[in-house]
């Protein structure tokens, strides 16, 4: 809680479904309530997946306190039981209706489905602040690959759940990889120069070089991706015969990196560095040793292993939610 309270806008992401995001969210809401700090909450829509009412019904309920702000699709208000005052309609439409900003007029449950695009999230966060919220919590999408981008949130809590794999070493390795991506340094490049192309090349000073293929990376210091980074995009670089030491692959932020761990390691092994436009501030890792598939881990062992593997605070939220 002390760590969380250093930041204005905090997003919560997870390594898989049932990673424990809602538990963490409810834990943080309770924490802010105890501190007497008004909080505003919304959820990131299901980025990149087919959004349907059925999926939304599976969204867990959040327990809010009177005075909290929240943003959700209007029709979901009836699925919760909190009394709510409508403050703003945002013009952001979802299959479940327009996203509205509400103030809770009682304690109670709410079902959240907020905007999925970052522009919509930024708008909602702005409306939250207009209404006096200083603490904003964003319930992230299902996995780390579509987390609330650092463009919007100041920091992230990453939930690592046992539902990821029955094999704890797999879960640990994936979590280390994710934390490594979160921890990538800032590139210092001006991305506006490279906006128009999917991939382009820059020299040490960030000057754009004439477009060349990834195989012949030559004397480029930076390979800049303005969109998402995938294995397929980077394969030509991985199989190139050139010396890749000193080459840095740069992209917007960790949410754009869809690389497999093996491709990432392979490129690193050849001397390739990675950097981002906006680094993600990882506040903490929340460990959830319980698996939805009944293949959980020993709690103490899991937390201990995560602490050994990761350089960020690791905590276990036990039964924080109602």
């Amino acid at each position, binding site marked *: 809680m002390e760590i969380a309270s250093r930041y204005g806008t905090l997003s919560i992401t997870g390594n898989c479904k049932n990673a424990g995001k809602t538990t963490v969210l409810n834990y943080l809401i309770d924490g802010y309530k105890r501190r007497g700090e008004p909080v505003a909450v919304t959820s990131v829509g299901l980025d990149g997946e087919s959004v349907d009412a059925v999926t939304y019904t599976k969204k867990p309920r959040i327990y809010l306190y009177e005075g909290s702000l929240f943003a959700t699709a*209007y029709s979901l208000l009836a699925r919760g*039981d909190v*009394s709510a005052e409508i403050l703003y*309609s945002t013009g952001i439409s979802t299959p479940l209706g327009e996203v509205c900003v509400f103030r809770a007029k009682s304690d109670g449950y709410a079902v959240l489905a907020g905007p999925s695009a970052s522009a919509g999230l930024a708008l909602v966060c702005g409306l939250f602040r207009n209404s006096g919220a200083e603490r904003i919590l964003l319930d992230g999408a299902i996995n780390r690959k579509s987390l609330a981008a650092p463009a919007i949130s100041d920091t992230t809590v990453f939930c690592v759940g046992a539902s990821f794999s029955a094999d704890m070493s797999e879960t640990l390795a994936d979590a280390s990889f994710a934390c490594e991506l979160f921890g990538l340094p800032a590139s210092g490049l001006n991305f506006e120069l490279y906006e128009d192309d999917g991939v382009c090349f820059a020299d040490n000073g960030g000057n754009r070089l004439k477009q060349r293929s990834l195989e012949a990376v030559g004397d480029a210091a930076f390979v800049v991706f303005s969109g998402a980074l995938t294995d397929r995009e980077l394969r030509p670089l991985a199989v190139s015969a050139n010396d890749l030491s000193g080459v840095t692959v740069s992209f917007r932020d960790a949410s754009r990196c869809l690389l497999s761990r093996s491709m990432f390691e392979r490129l690193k092994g050849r001397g390739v560095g990675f950097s981002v436009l906006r680094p993600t501030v990882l506040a903490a890792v929340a460990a959830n040793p319980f698996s939805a598939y009944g293949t959980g881990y020993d709690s103490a062992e899991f937390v201990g292993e995560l602490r050994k593997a990761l350089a960020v605070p690791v905590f276990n939220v036990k039964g924080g939610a109602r």
Partner: protein
Amino acid sequence: MKNGSLNADFKYVCSLVEPASVFGRELLKRAPVFRDRDELTGELDNIQKVRDGFDANRRLVQRVRDGISPLKDVRRSLAELDSRSFSGLEMFELKCFLLSWESARRDCEKLIKALNLVGFELFDPQRALEIIDPTKQRISSFFIGDELCAGIDGLRAEKRRLEKKLKNADDDELTKQRAALVLSEQKLERETLRRMSRELAPFAEGLVELVSVVARLDLLLEKGRLARERGCGRPAVCECGMRLKDAVNPRLADRIEAFTPISVSLSRGATVVTGANMGGKSVALGVAALSAELLRRGFFPFAAECELELFDEVTVMFGDMSDDERGLSSFGGEIAALKKLTEDIKDKNCFVAIDELARGTNAREGEAVAAAVTGYLNAQSCVALIATHYDNVSPRASAHYQVAGLESGDGLPDEQRGLAERMRYGIFPVAPGARCPHDAVAICRAFGLDGGIIDDIEKILERGD
């Protein structure tokens, strides 16, 4: 393409006006045609008042714009208000609309009075607001409390009491009690929304009308501003023809520094424009057509002075008329359009502008077609303006204009004087049958076409073959 250039010209004019409200922007997009002369005159009177009073009321105009710009479109919900009740979100939207309008209305009223505008009845939101906000809190959020639904606050207080108890201990009985309270609360909210919707239904029509009043006022202010900025004279709506003094096409005039304004007087029947290539025949046709179109859509034409009739239709036939889809060549497309035009002018009062009629076929037959069509249009009740290079067309028209064309390059090699410098734009009346200026060779020379070709052209012309 038929009417393509006219549409582009009109769109450009639309791009010069920026209504502040979503309703004004929507009205501009439709730009409905005025069919009734009195209605049009009323609109022109109002535009004139805005134009003349704009500077003195600049700040008030801005306040009106600021006031109406946040109004959201609630018409879709209003249209269904008599058949179903509003959701909380719709009630919230309507409340925001009424509150915004309540504060915008005062400035609108002031401005209408200051400018003496006619035809603007402003809906008074008070009685509708009394239903949504009976305690006059005037806060732009929506929540059903005791002031809207007696007893609901007590129910919520009980819910809160149970929540406090539940926080300390999970208790099935308390949870059940709380769930029952939540159901009662939701039921009361639904009933309240139904009651409010019923009470608001009689205001729906007035609110929809208000939207159209706001749209008209919003667009009117912009039309007046534009007329003021561009020095447009108030058009007189006359019975017959068109008289323009110093008229321009803003789409061209904003790009070309020294655009020569056009002055022309057209009566019923056909008027022919002849003259040098690049001398401004097409521009003159475009200005006349745009002026007629602007008046039809309730704008001031871009002219220092003008007098126009309200046409039912404005038709232009410019440039390449070919139609690949219908398998028509340029000449074929032109004739197909002419056929339609001859049908249209039978029962409609049309303005017609045709550029270089029948130029897409051989010169001999082309000239015959152009002369015959001109003669036909001259005998109809339409107003037609026809540009041509053919000599034997103007005798069939009732009036003839000529572009001034190239000045002679006396004493100077042609290449040393820019074409534009030597071209005298603008059109002047001449007698029907006056010979067309023949400047094609001079223009070839001014563009620096190969000297051998020019020599050959001149030899051919001398021989007369």
